[in-house]
């Protein structure tokens, strides 16, 4: 049963990812990305990583994608095929070849590595919201606080790059 759900989510994620890159309409692409994110969230939930699953839904499928849609609406992109370059065929060919080589390389490497290293035994609660919260505020307290400083730096950086210029010439 679990395996069935797993495959369903996998197929869903791959198909919607394909839809996202092949569709010509930006809104459709964005919605496909939402679907991909949601399927991924399902995969996380299957892996017992409840918190990540919920965060994936709220942050990626929710907040960030809404932002995407807003930008698309604000930019008012016309829904017609954009001409990217002249040699579309060659670009597509090159892309296929490169991805093909990468895939072959990956398969070869995977075969060489062989069976994965024996996974360490994990706790029943590993990855659940409670366990993650507990870890964040005990063992990982310091990294957690550093992350808050990191966010502050990111906000300050975004503000200084994007806000309207205030006149600060020699007053």
């Amino acid at each position, binding site marked *: 049963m679990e395996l069935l759900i797993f495959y369903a989510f996998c197929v869903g994620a791959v198909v919607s990812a394909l839809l996202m890159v092949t569709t010509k309409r930006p809104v459709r692409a964005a919605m496909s990305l939402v679907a991909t994110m949601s399927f991924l969230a399902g995969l996380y939930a299957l892996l017992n990583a409840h918190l990540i699953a919920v965060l994936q839904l709220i942050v990626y499928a929710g907040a960030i994608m809404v932002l995407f849609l807003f930008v698309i609406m604000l930019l008012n992109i016309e829904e017609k095929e954009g001409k990217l370059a002249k040699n579309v065929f060659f670009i597509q060919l090159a892309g296929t070849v490169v991805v093909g080589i990468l895939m072959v390389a990956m398969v070869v490497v995977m075969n060489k590595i062989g069976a994965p290293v024996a996974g360490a035994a994990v706790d029943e609660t590993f990855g659940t919201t409670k366990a993650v919260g507990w870890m964040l505020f005990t063992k990982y307290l310091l990294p957690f606080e550093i992350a808050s400083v990191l966010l502050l730096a990111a906000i300050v*950086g975004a503000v*200084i790059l994007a806000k309207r210029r205030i006149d*600060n010439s020699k007053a």
Partner: protein
Amino acid sequence: MEQVMSSISLSAIAPELVLVACGLIVLMIQAVFGSRFRDSFAYVSLLGIGGAAFLVLTSPGAFESKIVEYSFCDMWVVDNFSRFFKLIFLIGTGLTLLISLRYLDNEAMQHSEYYALMLLCTVGMMVMASAAELITIFLGVELMSISLYALAGYTRSRMMSNEAAIKYFILGSFASGFLIYGIALIYGTTGTSQIPAIARYLAQAGAGAAVLVMGMALLIIGFGFKTASVPFHMWAPDVYEGAPAPVTGFMSAGPKAAAFAAFVRIFMEALPTLQTDWIMVIWLIAVLTMTVGNIIALVQENIKRMLAYSSIAHAGYVLVAFLAAGELGLTSILYYMLAYTFMNIGAFAVITMLAGAGETRVKVEDYRGVGYKHPVAALAMSLFLFSLAGIPPTGGFMGKFYIFSAAVKQGYIWLAIIGVLNSVVSVYYYLRVTVAMYMQAPEKDEDVPAASALSPALVVAIFISAYGVLSLGLFPSTYVAMVKESFLSFL
């Protein structure tokens, strides 16, 4: 070696706390008073830098004993190695703040965000030097990088600056991806992200797993990017050229040292069992980095771009020391990073001074006649360039001497020969600037750039840098004693 175990220890992170607090204070001053007290931003920041340096120096056992103090559930380690690097970062940031004062006035960009980002960036570097756990190191890397992305694009009105920020941001985020993937693979193999625990696991289980080697390779790519080593150096010239001159100086000293600090700690402490796997790779990277950096620098006309390639080449020299490892190699890394901070920021101080509004005077040919119009600055610039080229009696010479002698002692004779040849090549482009300053006359007298960003603070910065370069070259023994106390205290 004794180990003191404790959990939450505010004294262990006191220098970082002071810097974060100062960053917040500076932001609040602007938020509450507008730009009325904008001259105070720099002084508050410098006060914070001084306070942090004081706390680093006076923390118990600093540079006296080899006590390694772990805190925050083994996430954080305070030892002489991290203290030494923190001092390098603080010196770099302090000098940069002194340089930027008048520059920001000239560009009409005297905002508190500049100082806050500088301080937060320094905190990020200090986290990289002091973290004993991979995720914490990664957070440090990101804190440092994100602040740098914004600082690189700080002069928003200049297209070059925008380009630098975007390029740095996209490529840097990409490199961070490699780093975090490498960390994930190492965690997946060893079941822990704590550096001492990884070392214990690998000592027991041996290091055969291919996934582990892949993780290590990804870490090399990530840190190779952050240290601007060939072939991961593509971003450096454009970013260095486009970023505001004081930020370029800052970027090439502190963050590079921070990347090396984390690099050394992870590879020497957590992954020493993989040494046979990384030696060839790093050997190749070191040779490429030195050679490509120096050869491309030969043909640069823009002095900031030239110093970008020179900075790539210097990363190559440090990688030679990294390969030599052991006591000699690691002490020479510490020594070299200190010397490099002084000489490179010193050179950028002079560049900032002469760059003019909007940084229009940054070509080598703009330096014609500077030797007569600004004799002191030209003298200082020559000193810094001689030091970068590795000519005695400067700190750069002693640093290279230590690195290459460490390489020879460890049997990397060819590497040392390539390194010395490279530094001979580098003399050409460093001397070109000196020749322009003293031996070439500009077409018109007005063509000599004015010292537009000259300020008492900048003069102080140049003098401190010159003092650092000279004393590292003339009295190396005092520094070597300190470095010896710091090098491998974590092994």
